[in-house]
């Protein structure tokens, strides 16, 4: 309570000054302000504000984050010592050694993402003379979870500045952006520093150093940290040692937080239960990816794509497994459902989600440089979301117009009355 009142005093002291929004920002960032509309007002105050929404998403992300910290260590030690022959969750996965690797590798990503992002937000709050916008709370948590673990921190910082300024602030800040800022950051990293974002050396901590040692002649017995999609893209699916349960529970290499489909599923259910995220988008995106996967499976079954084709590995991958490898599940649950950049109409959400799933799997198979396309598919559909909404709304207006045209309006004889009614109901 005392911190709150201290901040409140500071805020009053700086009222009207240039730095006022920064103090305001701190205050509202941590607490609900004392000022409310006066008691006689007509506004209904709900605690379910933007901050609450953001916090709920963060809560859904915490298990993923903690899992990713253990997985960072698990993949690291497995790459050096080989995968444990007799896997036990307590002895091989939830160990302090694994968690320590997570602390030194994953936590800095989170800190840099939040630190840089919030600095940019505060600067813009001061420039605009606004309260700070909470929009970065979720983005800041998403960003470290969708990058490879060995991403250099300065690259992340540059990308965060780019994503927040070009992806969000130029459009007017939180709620006004066209593209999902977290995915803008990911896309920037992908196009700016491709060698750090793709290939088989970036997904496991230390893989790059180890491969350099091997090149230099060291006799290190290490397995490479190729992702499952990477194996498949090179038609080396047979060399993979991961079981379906590994893929589902997430004991596989990949971007920091995308591996565990199980925890993402739990997070998704939590978001649906709290009514924060749209189940329509999630369900339709799952359907979309399954449909595209089935089409590819059928193409292989008909023999149109032979084993010699470079697409064979990914096309013959069982259609439902697309959901448990790579970033598809993470993208569908946490990115596609972003209420700002997604479709707003219920019907539009079905189309929007369906195409995200559909295009994700398509890009995944056909992208020659990088066997993953979830972020590109979501960004593409972000751009189309307003158009989808436009046609849904137009369609609704047209349907109602038709209904009105065919309806019998009483009194029948007065055309003037009917016209008036039309204008009102439509």
């Amino acid at each position, binding site marked *: 309570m005392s911190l709150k009142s201290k901040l409140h005093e500071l805020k009053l002291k700086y009222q009207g000054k240039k730095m006022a929004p920064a103090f305001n920002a701190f205050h509202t960032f941590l607490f609900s302000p004392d000022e409310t509309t006066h008691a006689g007002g007509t506004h209904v105050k709900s605690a379910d504000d933007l901050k609450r929404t953001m916090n709920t998403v963060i809560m859904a992300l915490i298990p993923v984050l903690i899992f990713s910290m253990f997985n960072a260590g698990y993949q690291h030690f497995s790459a050096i010592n080989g995968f444990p022959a007799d896997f036990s969750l307590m002895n091989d996965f939830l160990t302090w050694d694994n968690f320590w690797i997570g602390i030194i590798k994953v936590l800095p990503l989170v800190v840099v993402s939040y630190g840089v992002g919030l600095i940019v937000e505060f600067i813009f709050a001061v420039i605009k003379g606004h309260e700070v916008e909470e929009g970065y709370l979720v983005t800041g948590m998403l960003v470290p979870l969708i990058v490879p673990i060995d991403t*250099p921190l*300065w*690259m992340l910082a*540059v990308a965060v500045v780019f994503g927040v300024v*070009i992806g969000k602030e*130029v459009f007017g800040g939180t709620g006004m952006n066209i593209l999902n800022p977290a995915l803008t950051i990911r896309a*920037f990293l992908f*196009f*700016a*520093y*491709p*060698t*750090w974002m793709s290939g088989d050396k970036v997904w496991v901590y230390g893989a790059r150093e180890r491969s350099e040692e091997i090149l230099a002649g060291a006799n290190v017995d290490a397995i490479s940290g190729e992702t499952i999609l990477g194996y498949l893209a090179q038609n080396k699916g047979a060399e993979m040692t991961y079981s379906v349960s590994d893929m589902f529970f997430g004991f596989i290499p990949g971007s920091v937080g995308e591996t565990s489909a199980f925890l993402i599923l739990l997070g998704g259910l939590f978001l649906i239960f709290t009514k924060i995220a749209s189940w329509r988008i999630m369900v339709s995106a799952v359907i979309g990816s399954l449909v595209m996967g089935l089409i590819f499976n059928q193409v292989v079954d008909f023999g149109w794509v032979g084993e010699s084709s470079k697409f064979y590995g990914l096309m013959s991958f069982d259609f439902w497994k697309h959901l448990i490898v790579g970033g598809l599940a993470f993208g569908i649950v946490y990115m596609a459902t972003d209420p700002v950049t997604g479709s707003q109409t219920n019907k539009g959400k079905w189309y929007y989600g369906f195409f995200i799933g559909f295009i994700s799997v398509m890009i995944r198979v056909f992208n020659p440089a990088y066997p993953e396309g979830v972020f590109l598919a979501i960004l593409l559909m972000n751009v189309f979301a307003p158009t989808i909404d436009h046609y849904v709304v137009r369609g609704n207006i047209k349907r109602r117009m038709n209904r009105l045209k065919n309806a019998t309006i009483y009194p029948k004889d007065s055309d003037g009355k009917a016209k008036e009614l039309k204008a009102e109901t439509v």
Partner: protein
Amino acid sequence: MALLSKKDTNLITDPLADNNPITIQVLGICSALAITAELKASLVMAISVMFVLGAGNVVISLMRNIIPSKIRIIVQLIVVATLVIIVDQVLKAYAYELSKTLAVFVGLIITNCIIMGRFEAFALANGPWRSFLDGIGNSLGYGVILVIVGFFRELLGSGTLFGFPVLGDPIMKTGLYATGYENNGFMIIPPAALIVVGIIIWVQRSRNPALVEEN
């Protein structure tokens, strides 16, 4: 008397800032996106456009009273096409490598909106000297943006300026690269130019709010 009257000076200085062809009139964007990955190409493009626009404006201005207005666009196209072919041939003769980098974009100067725009808006209504100044001014305004964009794209994208490695050697890891710095591949591709031009527009308009368009 000064070399240029105040009115004439404005013909040159206006397009450099408050009436810039790229950032204010938003003309000639295609070439600004396409060829600015290198500073050298930007500079050559700027000089080529300066030659074409300066000379073209004078020619059109001299002919302005004898061009039938119904076919003036065709006449303008012939003039600009002639000048562009001269530029293209000169580049091929004396800077073959560079002409390959610029490729089709030298030919596309013909369709650069700035050139037809100045012919229509200025040269058809003014004398040769003023038209010449106007051409030089507008191509300078165009060139300045090209060079700024080219500077940032080449510096951040390739770590070089005019082909000189100013940041060190990315393969031998010298200079700045020794600290772990890497070239930004995003700056090489044309969308980066769009963003750099956008930032210039942003900076310019926030320094001079009078330029902000009402919608």
